[in-house]
């Protein structure tokens, strides 16, 4: 592994950071294009496997970035891609959030804020729907999603307990 490889990783993922409007999932196609077609760091099959693995791990849905970095450049690669994908967008957010907070009583900010609320709600529902489409591999998986959603809303059970029971049900062959 060379320093040039780490620099290439930093450049690719630094750009993805500023392209990721609407979160990580919006840049997955571009990430695959860069990693597979442009730089030939892995096959499309490898990329899909890493993506699925990242979905199963805890953490933000950007975790595929760390995995790709690890596969290409080891632990150093993972640290480089993770930092590269975080830094540009974080600096932008720091600046914008500061201004936004300072003008919290301004009429124009209140108007924009009120306007953003329903769009935010629609976006979250859209992410949930798209995620459900990808996780519903059969009717049992769909049933798990519905039961889990009901329990999360109506019961006081700890979310981790619900997830653990679902995983165990899968392991013993009730689902999947």
């Amino acid at each position, binding site marked *: 592994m060379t320093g040039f490889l780490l620099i290439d990783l930093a450049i690719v993922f630094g750009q993805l*950071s*500023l392209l990721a*409007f*609407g*979160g990580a999932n919006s840049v997955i196609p571009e990430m695959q294009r860069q990693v597979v077609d442009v730089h030939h760091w892995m096959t499309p099959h490898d990329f899909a496997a*890493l993506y699925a*693995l990242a*979905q*199963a791990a*805890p*953490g*933000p*849905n950007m975790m595929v970035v*760390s*995995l790709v970095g690890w*596969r290409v450049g080891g632990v150093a690669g993972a*640290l480089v891609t*993770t930092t590269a994908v*975080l830094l*540009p967008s974080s600096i932008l*957010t720091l600046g914008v*959030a*500061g201004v*936004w907070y300072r003008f919290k009583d301004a009429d124009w900010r209140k*108007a924009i*804020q*009120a*306007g*953003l*609320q*329903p769009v*935010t*709600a*629609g*976006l*979250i529902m859209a*992410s*949930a*729907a798209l*995620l459900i489409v990808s*996780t*519903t591999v059969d009717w049992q*998986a769909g049933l*798990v*999603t*519905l*039961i*889990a*959603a009901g329990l*999360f*809303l109506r019961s006081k059970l700890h*979310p981790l307990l619900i*997830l653990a029971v*679902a*995983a165990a049900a*899968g*392991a013993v062959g*009730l*689902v*999947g």
Partner: protein
Amino acid sequence: MSETRPPETRPDPSVFDLFLGFFIVGVCGFGGVLPWARRMIVEQRKWLTPTEFTEMLGLCQFLPGGNIMNVTIALGSRFRGIPGAIAAIVGLMAAPVAIVICLGAVYDQYAGFPPVRRAFVALAAAAAGFLLAMSWKIVAPLRANPWAVGIAVCTFVAIAVVRLPMVMAMPVLAIGSTLILWRVRA
């Protein structure tokens, strides 16, 4: 629109509180971090009211980068400036990066083992249910305003059904929504 509260109950997390809170979110965050982050920030530690959280998330969705990473940065810096932002984001990322690398290392050996594969399928399905439940909590307060419901439905259709590119759809939706709600109120 944010609710006012008496000064003595105003939250004041330290840099370490921010690190710890987001560290736990990172460890727990199976299937995406948003539901866990909202649970910690709004329901458990009460750093933000539900309205403040939705407002902050709304702003962060319009900036590039992971939504929850942006929320983490914005919230950390609101309470403790740049050190707070760094503590919060390092807390959020530390455990997941370590875990995902370990998962990658063992993946090749066990991927073909059916119980492991089926456990992941079921885990992903339940995690999707978690996100569905949390999105309902964010949508529910809008029900009083039919215009807001209409805009939320339009956004949902544009992104999830028509699959318009986000960069194209969001400016139109955001500006349209702001103008419509401004008009209705005036």
